[in-house]
């Protein structure tokens, strides 16, 4: 679960990671008042969406008066912000963060993540803050310092020092710097995060270390033990059909193509998306109905696939295991009767009780195109999109 920058900064504050003074606003008047309360002579207004690269899309702007803060907030709120990470459809801005603008002397990247290959947390730092860490890892891997963490021990002082000295922080900042890494790891560990990122961590002209940006991604599987974090979820950031699907325990991801798919199992669903592409079309979605797909779930699956107006054909690909093909075929027939389907549907069933399943499809008065194998399914999809 991703959260907004302002929410991540509130968490940082609780963990004593210094952040610029500021607050979130939902309208222009609030934004102006926040600027007045903070005081000073320069402010920054930042659009709050769950995607990076906001500066490139006009989502981060400087103001010289509280009135200008209000005016910029007015312009940002409600706008659709397109950044390199949002995709062409962009995201609607519903809140802005107003902060004091600071004079930056130096920028660092710092982050905590999971190293899959080494199977442990890793703290990452670089003196080239502001830049995307992944681009940096590709172009100049030597500019990145990493410390791998033994979870039974936590972050020992020497590893925090390795990071601080490794990125060349001034000797006067060692205390503050190691403090940031200690607290960063505490956030990561105690809140079950997949990723915590400060990019950039800045040194101001008066030698203060501050988190100028903040990004946190929580482990969805651990949210059951952090019920308070669920309040931070912003449903507006989720694609509406994906949100609807998740309410019905369906794993659906909307894509940009025109052939919808419904599959049991995530790996087979990905392989089925690939098959659509190989058949000369583009997958409209990923949809895993799981191993225990019921008629209700298949019905809902049809409704969600058809909620995407680009869909002009559907491929159902089910490999019957413990859940038998005849049960699934009955579910598909029942579901199809309930939902008005106006596009061709290719059904490919295989596995346990496949003959009974195919007979059920054939006996129904519905117009299914039945395929026997993956290769046959590809050919039949090719025929409907031709």
């Amino acid at each position, binding site marked *: 679960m991703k959260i907004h920058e302002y929410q991540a900064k509130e968490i940082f504050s609780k963990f004593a990671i210094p952040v610029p003074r500021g607050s979130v606003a939902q309208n222009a008047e609030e934004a102006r008042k926040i600027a007045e309360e903070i005081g000073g002579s320069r402010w920054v207004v930042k659009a709050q969406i769950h995607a990076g690269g906001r500066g490139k899309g006009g989502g981060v702007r400087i103001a010289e008066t509280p009135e200008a803060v209000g005016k910029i907030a007015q312009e940002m709120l409600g706008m659709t912000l397109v950044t390199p990470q949002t995709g062409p459809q962009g995201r609607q801005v519903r809140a802005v963060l107003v902060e004091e603008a600071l004079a930056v002397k130096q920028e660092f990247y710092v982050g905590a993540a999971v190293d*899959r290959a080494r199977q442990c947390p890793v703290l990452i730092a670089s003196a080239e803050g502001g830049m995307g860490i992944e681009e940096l890892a590709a172009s100049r891997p030597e500019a990145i310092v990493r410390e791998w963490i033994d979870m039974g021990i936590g972050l020992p002082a020497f590893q925090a020092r390795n990071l601080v000295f490794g990125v060349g922080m001034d000797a006067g900042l060692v205390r503050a710097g190691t403090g940031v890494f200690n607290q960063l790891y505490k956030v990561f560990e105690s809140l079950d995060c997949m990723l915590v990122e400060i990019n950039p961590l800045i040194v101001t002209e008066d030698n203060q270390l501050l988190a100028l940006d903040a990004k946190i991604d929580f482990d969805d*599987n651990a949210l059951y033990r952090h019920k308070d974090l669920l309040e931070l979820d912003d449903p507006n950031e989720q694609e509406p059909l994906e949100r609807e699907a998740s309410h019905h325990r369906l794993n659906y991801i909307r894509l940009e193509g025109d052939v919808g798919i419904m599959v049991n199992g995530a790996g087979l669903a*990905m392989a089925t998306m*690939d098959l659509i592409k*190989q058949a000369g079309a*583009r997958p409209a979605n990923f949809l895993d109905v799981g191993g225990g797909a019921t008629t209700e779930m298949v019905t809902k699956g049809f409704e969600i696939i058809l909620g995407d107006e680009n869909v002009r054909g559907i491929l159902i690909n089910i490999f019957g295991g413990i859940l038998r093909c005849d049960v699934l075929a009955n579910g598909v027939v029942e579901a199809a009767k309930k939902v008005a389907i106006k596009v061709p549907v290719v059904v490919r069933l295989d596995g346990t009780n496949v003959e009974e399943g195919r007979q059920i499809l054939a006996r129904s008065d519905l117009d299914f195109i039945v395929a026997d194998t993956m290769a046959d399914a590809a050919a039949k999809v090719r025929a409907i999109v031709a």
Partner: protein
Amino acid sequence: MSILIDKDTRLLVQGITGREGSFHTRQCVAYGTHVVAGVTPGKGGQGLDGIPVFNTIGEAVDRTGANASLIFVPSPFAPDAIMESGAAGLGLTVCITEGIPIKDMLKVVPFLKRKNCCLIGPNCPGVISPGRCKAGIMPGQIHKEGSVGVISRSGTLTYEVVHQLTQSGLGQSTCIGIGGDPIIGSSFVDMLKLFDQDPDTEGVVLIGEIGGHDEETAAEYIRDHFSKPVVGFVAGLTAPPGKRMGHAGAIISGSGGTAAEKIAAMRKGGIHVVEHLGELGKEASEVFG
């Protein structure tokens, strides 16, 4: 022969009294697996179809000589169940449970390695040595005894592949679903090492998917150390970056993990990569035939 499990496996089921646990225990027994014990804390003394249930693994092992465990415990309690299995000295633990927090697995995996216990999963369909033993949730009847090893990160996709192999007349020595999570107990390489030593495995099918670098590591291992032919497939050529495709571990991140990169690495490693899933059985017949 086979790897991990065979006719001598004495299986213990953790969470045997739950809905999933009891259903799949019966399926394993029907396949011919020796399920010798169940463990559900607080339900010791009960039984399932004559299989005795114990409160602790220690007790179950003492009384029944169990030597492998299959776990159906819900995700909040599964990490503890895995550690109990490892601590009791069982050589193999297979965890089916999906949705275990990553932090828990980061602690559990090193713990099991210290105990020299092989962990398969979590979030996996389990292990089957066709005709000998099934420790998992896969449909037994699509398998056939033979000499092809199968290693995969997913469930139904593995069934699809196994089905094609069986239809092509290629039986399997052992099929392993290593799991769809980012942190799992055994990697492709761990399993390849076992298959390399198994005289009855003549070739391996390796089924990868987007996310992480396990396929790339496996490809290097195969190029440098593996003596048997390998056929491969990678799911997710059309997956968009930054989205988790069902499996917690199936995500293309900025540091890579795309299907195209994996396929390229696998080809470099000498693996016969199939791009059209429907043709996997045919390709396997040519390579292993």
